[in-house]
């Protein structure tokens, strides 16, 4: 208690404020922050802790009893081929969507910045999927991927690549979902890069030109890329966090199929927890999911610190 009170006292003495005033301010602060603090604990932190605790039990929804089974659920996970498949699919999805949407986003941002005309139109066109309801747009993609009359198959057929049953073919279903993921993520990455490009001082390009940077590739390698480096890392990590949470397209378009080819972590968690009512087991998948997201978030925190130094 005394250590907690110290900063307030020190601050008060520097400001030469009467003790009564300090106490009043602290009281007001507690009253103002109390609802948020209570909800933060009651709605976010304690339920998160409850998820972790549940993952050590065999509890099922509606069951009258629950047993502490220690690492039982995690041992089951380690032996569960569906879980490993789902984790591998999630990582593969992230490994495709992240680089593709980040580098396409960068390319689009650079092309937009490189000229004067059409900027507003292109920015809006590429950003539109970010705000549009993904579930609704996924049903549109489903029709575009229709095996016989889908727009995409018509286009593939027209250039001689044949028609495919995209969402029912185990080899094509996850790539098809990844394309939708890229389509949805690209616009946000583009605007983050546009902001980054705008913050590069113009004199750097002039200096590079004096130093003999003649074509766009020289300018890119000597100025743009080094200046964008930290921003690029940041965009990579937040895209990874977001694509790690892929759920909507899987739940609606493939339901994890065909033959588990598109099962992803959150979908497995949903099925175990809410489809089969194995709350404890579902909680252990949630914990695995949380660990991955936490690792990515810690990387992001490191990147953001670095970014401050550059800025």
């Amino acid at each position, binding site marked *: 208690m005394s250590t907690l009170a110290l900063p307030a006292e020190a601050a008060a003495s520097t400001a030469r404020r009467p003790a009564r005033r300090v106490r009043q301010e602290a009281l007001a602060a507690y009253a*103002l922050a109390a609802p948020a603090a209570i909800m933060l604990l009651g709605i976010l932190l304690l339920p998160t802790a409850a998820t972790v605790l549940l993952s050590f039990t065999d509890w099922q929804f509606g069951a009258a009893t629950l047993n502490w089974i220690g690492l039982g659920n995690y041992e089951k996970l380690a032996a569960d081929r569906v879980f490993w498949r789902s984790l591998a699919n999630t990582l593969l999805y992230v490994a495709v969507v992240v680089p593709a949407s980040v580098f396409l986003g960068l390319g689009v941002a650079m092309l937009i910045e490189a000229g004067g005309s059409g900027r507003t139109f292109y920015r809006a066109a590429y950003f539109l999927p970010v705000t549009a309801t993904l579930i609704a747009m996924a049903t549109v993609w489903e029709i575009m991927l229709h095996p016989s009359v889908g727009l995409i198959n018509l286009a593939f057929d027209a250039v001689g690549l044949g028609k495919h049953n995209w969402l029912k073919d185990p080899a094509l279903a996850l790539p098809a979902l990844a394309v939708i993921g890229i389509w949805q993520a690209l616009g946000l990455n583009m605007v983050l890069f546009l902001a980054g490009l705008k913050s590069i001082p113009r004199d750097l390009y002039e200096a590079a030109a004096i130093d003999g940077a003649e074509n766009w590739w020289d*300018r890119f390698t000597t100025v743009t890329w080094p200046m964008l480096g930290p921003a690029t890392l940041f965009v990579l990590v937040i895209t990874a966090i977001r694509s790690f949470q892929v759920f909507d397209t899987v739940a609606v378009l493939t339901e994890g199929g065909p033959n588990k080819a598109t099962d992803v972590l959150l979908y497995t968690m949903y099925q175990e927890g809410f489809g089969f009512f194995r709350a404890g087991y579902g909680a252990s998948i949630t914990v695995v999911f949380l660990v991955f997201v936490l690792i990515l978030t810690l990387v992001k925190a490191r990147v953001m610190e670095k970014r401050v130094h550059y800025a």
Partner: protein
Amino acid sequence: MTAPRGLPFAILRHVLLGIGAVFMLAPFVWMLSLSLKPADEIFTTDLRLLPQRWDAVRNYSEAFRKVPLHRYLLNGAIVTATIFSLQVLVALPAAYALAKLRFGLAKPLFALVLFGLLIPGHVPAIPHYIMLSSAGLLDSYAALVFPSMISVFGIFWIRQFFKTVPDDLIHAARLDGLSEFAIVWRIMLPTAAPALVAFGIVSVVFHWNDYFWPLLVVTSPDMAMPALGTVYLRNTEAGTDYGPLMAGTVIITAPLVIAFLVAQRRFIEGMTLTGIKG
């Protein structure tokens, strides 16, 4: 960037960006196009943007007949507005206390806020479900709103904004005899307007589009949020009557797409904040 480049580059730029834009916009254009066509023109391999026989009226009225689309829009409006109001009601005073007032637990509280930022909303879902189920509140507006009543991102974002507000503004208000409570709602609320607009866009877009949570707690057809409602509509047919389905998706996506086209700059600024949220 720099150095004006020649005409060939300008053409190349438009060609590349144009091809990409076609890919980005194709789903929107195709959705609109199919929503106007009769079934026989949908199930054909001829590529046509506009229908030969317009069937828009049937498709759109059929979509509303199959599922209560107007309810989904209304639910979306009520729930997103309630969530945003509650988030501001809780976050604004806390953000003010954290940014401008001295109290002993300020640092631990802010550390908890930062810790909360790390946790994706899916993680506490199972305990939330248990809590709502034992309170008999599943399948209600309360269930849809409950997990989102507090936004740690909102507290963090508004606190960062308040840090940039000069202290003199608050000192002046205190000299005028305003209580801390009055300062929050009469001085800080209007000051925070730009930050609240950006946060509001993030909050409303997220909850309008959210599928995961409504899928867990909603069971009756009338309680669906827009995204879940789209799936109900999709499930009414064995996936064959595409005209009404596309009309329904047009209706569900229209509010946010129109809002985005009207206020592009604000939307883009707002949505880039989701980078902080992760």
